């Protein structure tokens, strides 16, 4: 029995090592390359320390069967009845009475005092003025945030969260006072929905795909009716779209930290146009050298591509990237839209691409080549939509660097 034990133990460690390096070779390799590329910028001891950090970091992120171990950990937490779980990477996830997961902390109260940032208001107002001076239509869209209207829900008394209701409403008020066209989807969703919290994934901080589609419809109406955009209103009708529900398919950002045995996956909706579509999508990516990724096809082929068994929030078109360009080959109206966004606009951008002639989807956290002022001039943009959720307000400088190139986060 002892020899069996020794063999099993050694095999477990050795196999864990081999499989991790085999499946994670790209992460290990790029990390090591990164260190060698910048070797001359650091001292020898610092370079060695960076090498060790890189290897350790790759080990943590690409450990073989990472997900299964997190599932096991989550299962144990559920078995012992925990409502608050320190998930992977030390983030705290807790489950409220409605069985939805939230990021938070163990504190004494929920903070309802969120406000807005004068600097943000000023930058958005300046950007709006720049656009309007060039006859470019501008709108600021406030995406709804899961951490809002929390007084309508039940939480353990010791949970600390920030409620972003005030942040959205105060930003809308401040921007409207500066003549910036604002669409506060958070307030509108709360007014129209019977249960605001259920419009969001239970394992993720984002809105559900169905809710995002509702948001797309409101944005489309706003662009047409309030800003006068040349867009086909029939394309906003739900009758022109099919909905396919993938059961138990998506594990969101909160759920991924505690595993499916703590909380089951969310259902995920694939909402596709029933009308004919032809899209050309392009973005650039690459570590060692930048490559261009292009695809032409109908909506499902371009937007969903090869969907695996498990989907993610970014399965519509792509995760956040510096710039994605989509040309609607069936639309020659000439309506060119620039969408400056955070992750909440990912599914919205997919349907918006069928609504416009050309669509640029820019994420300023990653886009560091061109200022948005220059971008508008260089690409002949007709309409600019800035779409952020309230948690982004004022928290990241780069997201509001419209007139210059920021250095990122």
């Amino acid at each position: 029995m002892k020899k069996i034990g020794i063999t099993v133990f050694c095999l477990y460690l050795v196999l864990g090592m081999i499989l991790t390096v085999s499946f994670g070779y790209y992460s290990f390799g790029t990390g090591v390359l990164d260190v060698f590329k910048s070797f001359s910028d650091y001292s020898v001891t610092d370079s060695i320390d960076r090498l060790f950090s890189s290897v350790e970091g790759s080990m943590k992120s690409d450990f073989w069967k990472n997900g299964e171990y997190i599932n096991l950990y989550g299962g144990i937490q559920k078995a012992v009845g925990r409502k608050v779980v320190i998930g992977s990477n030390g983030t705290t996830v807790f489950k409220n009475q409605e069985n939805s997961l939230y990021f938070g902390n163990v504190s004494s109260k929920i903070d309802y005092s969120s406000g807005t940032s004068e600097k943000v208001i000023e930058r958005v107002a300046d950007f709006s003025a720049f656009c309007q001076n060039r006859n470019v239509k501008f709108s600021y869209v406030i995406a709804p945030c899961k951490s809002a209207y929390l007084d309508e829900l039940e939480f353990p008394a010791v949970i600390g969260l920030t409620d972003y209701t005030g942040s959205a409403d105060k930003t809308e008020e401040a921007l409207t006072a500066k003549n910036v066209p604002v669409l506060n989807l958070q307030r509108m969703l709360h007014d129209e929905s019977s249960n605001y919290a259920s419009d969001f994934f239970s394992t993720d901080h984002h809105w559900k795909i169905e809710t995002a589609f509702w948001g797309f419809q409101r944005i489309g109406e706003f662009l047409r009716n309030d800003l006068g955009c040349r867009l086909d209103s029939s394309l906003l009708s739900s009758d022109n779209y099919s909905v396919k529900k993938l059961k138990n398919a998506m594990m969101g950002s909160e759920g991924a930290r505690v595993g499916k045995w703590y909380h089951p996956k969310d259902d995920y909706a694939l909402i596709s146009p029933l009308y004919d579509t032809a899209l050309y999508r392009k973005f650039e990516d690459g570590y060692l050298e930048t490559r261009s990724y292009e695809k032409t096809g109908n909506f499902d082929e371009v937007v969903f591509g090869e969907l695996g068994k498990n989907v993610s929030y970014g399965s519509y078109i792509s995760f956040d990237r510096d710039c994605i360009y989509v040309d609607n080959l069936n639309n020659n109206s000439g309506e060119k839209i620039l969408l400056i966004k955070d992750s909440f606009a990912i599914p919205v951008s997919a349907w918006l691409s069928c609504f416009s002639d050309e669509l640029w989807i820019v994420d300023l956290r990653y886009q560091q080549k061109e200022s948005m002022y220059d971008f508008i001039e260089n690409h002949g943009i007709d309409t600019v939509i800035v779409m952020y959720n309230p948690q982004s307000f004022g928290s990241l400088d780069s997201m509001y660097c419209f007139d210059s190139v920021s250095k990122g986060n």
Partner: protein
Amino acid sequence: MVFSSLIFLFAFLPCCLIGYYGIFRKSRKWQNYFLLICSLLFYSWGGVKYTGLILLSILINWLMALLIDNSGKKEKKNEQLAWLTIAVIFNIALLFVFKYVNFTVDNLNALFHLDIQIKEIALPIGISFFTFQGMSYVIDVFRKHGEALKNPLEVGLYISFFPQLIAGPIVRYETVADQIHNRRETVDLFSNGIGRFIIGLGKKAILANTLAVISDQVFSQYYTASGLSAWLGAIAYTLQIYFDFSGYSDMAIGLGKMFGFTFEENFDHPYLSSSITEFWRRWHISMGTWFRDYVYFPLGGSRVSSKARVIFNLFVVWMLTGIWHGANWTFILWGMLQFLVIFLERMTKINKSTSKGLRCFGHIYSLLVVIFGWVLFNSASVLSAWDYIKSMFFVGIPLADDYFFFAIKENAVVLVLSVLCCFPLIPWLQKNNRKEKQWYGIGRFVVLSLIMVVAVAYVVKGAFNPFIYFNF
């Protein structure tokens, strides 16, 4: 690098085992050199710049031991003593510069209204342990409890061997001198080593890290905590530090066994003690015996003519013990608390009582002294420790709060499990299963496998979980 990390478990350790039992299996010399290289890599992982320090420590201690041995052979006692003094001063100076100089300067500035400015010196990991091992080496050579090693690489292996380099146990040279060349790796020893390692990993990753969430939460917000929350935080820390430190020692001892080394035990269920004197024979045993053999006995111990001298000797030992733990008045006061209680126990002879009632009282008061001591130990300052302790006596605060009930409900299972694990379950199991060896073997395999997998799950989810005694 910590033992409870993926890089150690699934990269460093398997590579060490493959190298030791595979590539270098035919040569004890090369096995030792290989272990030395692994140990230096292990140490460097935490910061390459400090590797030079440990190499310097190895070199000086090696040289001093040779000089001591050489002088001893020539029967030049005074010369021998001089080399020993230089070696001890070097090790203490190293420790002082990197651990205590900032604290000393701050206190001198405060006491004498000076304005001495020095750069903040970072504390190299494990310096308290490897300097003590270095001193143990030269002192044991001086006392002829072990031979001076001609090969500096072997001294390097003794001082820097990775299982006990960062957080002990403090391995005295005389206990391992022979094992450097003459150890024997066996299936039994390796198997016991694995079991010990897994138990230690479970204690650290599953119990200590979970308890840390409670103690960190309460200690960081003690000024708003209720009395019961303060007690909960203190008890959680009491359990956390035990499982953290004894878990690390178990892993260190287990790893030593995997490579054929047998280290002495470092913990023996200390929370079952019926006196503080007994507690210190069960807690961090290697440190206690180090101070006993290298400080207390040379001062005369208890075998001195006057009681005052015994008290003085005890005072010195506990003052140094407190100081060793950290450069903060909290640690010094904590050491003094141990001295005071041990002194009172000696005076009243309560620790030697055979009365059941007194022994029961002894268990309770020992636990209370330990718990209050840990509050002092874990506090950032004496003032915050005092405020925390006042909370434990419900001075001006409510009895309970939402956090207390919430934490009890959330952590009931881990708290009960932790308390149970303070008892000698494994020796009890072993004792009661002697006749059912086969089932015991299968059961052991299954339980250890489960603990290993669960502990790895906890390690995977945690990004950063350093050991408490890492700060030493």
